[in-house]
């Protein structure tokens, strides 16, 4: 729970495996819900996204991530732990930039809490993304509702 939220570069398989491994042996949990967000190679006109460069207000990201965890744990009393990892810096298309893991006594709380946490992350984490296209041009991107 004390792990930092911001990760330099992509979120790797090893980081994800490490978070999952930490739950092994927890006999109070009945389910873990995982969300992995990754960079999509969107096509805009004649240009294709090759990477996203994330920037962040680090102190506020950590403060807001702490608030999200606190709210989720208080709203879903069956939730026992959660991890949030978010990339900072360049993440190539196909690489992961967001990882959310919620562990709960029962599946419904794990799934619902994970879904809610993702919406809160989108709304309140001070993170910005600049798309880098294959021709090396760039453009700032705002979140859609999808």
């Amino acid at each position, binding site marked *: 729970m004390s792990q930092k939220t911001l990760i330099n570069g992509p979120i790797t398989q090893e980081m994800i495996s490490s978070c999952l491994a930490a739950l092994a042996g927890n006999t109070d949990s009945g389910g873990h819900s995982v969300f992995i967000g990754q960079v999509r190679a969107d096509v805009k006109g004649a240009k294709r996204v090759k990477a996203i460069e994330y*920037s962040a207000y680090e102190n*506020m990201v950590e*403060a807001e991530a702490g608030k999200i965890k606190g709210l989720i744990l208080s709203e879903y009393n069956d939730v026992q732990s959660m991890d949030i990892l978010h990339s900072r810096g360049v993440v190539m298309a196909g690489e992961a930039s967001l990882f959310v893991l919620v562990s709960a006594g029962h599946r419904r709380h794990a799934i619902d809490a994970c879904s809610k946490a993702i919406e809160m992350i989108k709304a309140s*984490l*001070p*993170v910005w993304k600049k798309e880098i296209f294959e021709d090396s041009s760039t453009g700032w991107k705002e979140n859609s509702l999808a």
Partner: protein
Amino acid sequence: MEIQVLFFGVLAEVTQTAFKHYKGVTSFADLKMRIGDDFPEIAHYNFRIAVNNELINEDPVLKNGDEIAYMPPFAGG
């Protein structure tokens, strides 16, 4: 008062700086006016302001050493 002002996302790009230190600030209104004079281009962008990691909805009373962040709409995830 001395106030540290941070710019993020597209605002850091258009101001060509990630931060600027202001001295002799008398109030939030005074600070906003000075920032507007230094970086008039930011008026063309949507942004929210945080004081010491907290978003504000009305003009705050500043104190020496506060950190102000100018932030465009969030785009995490």
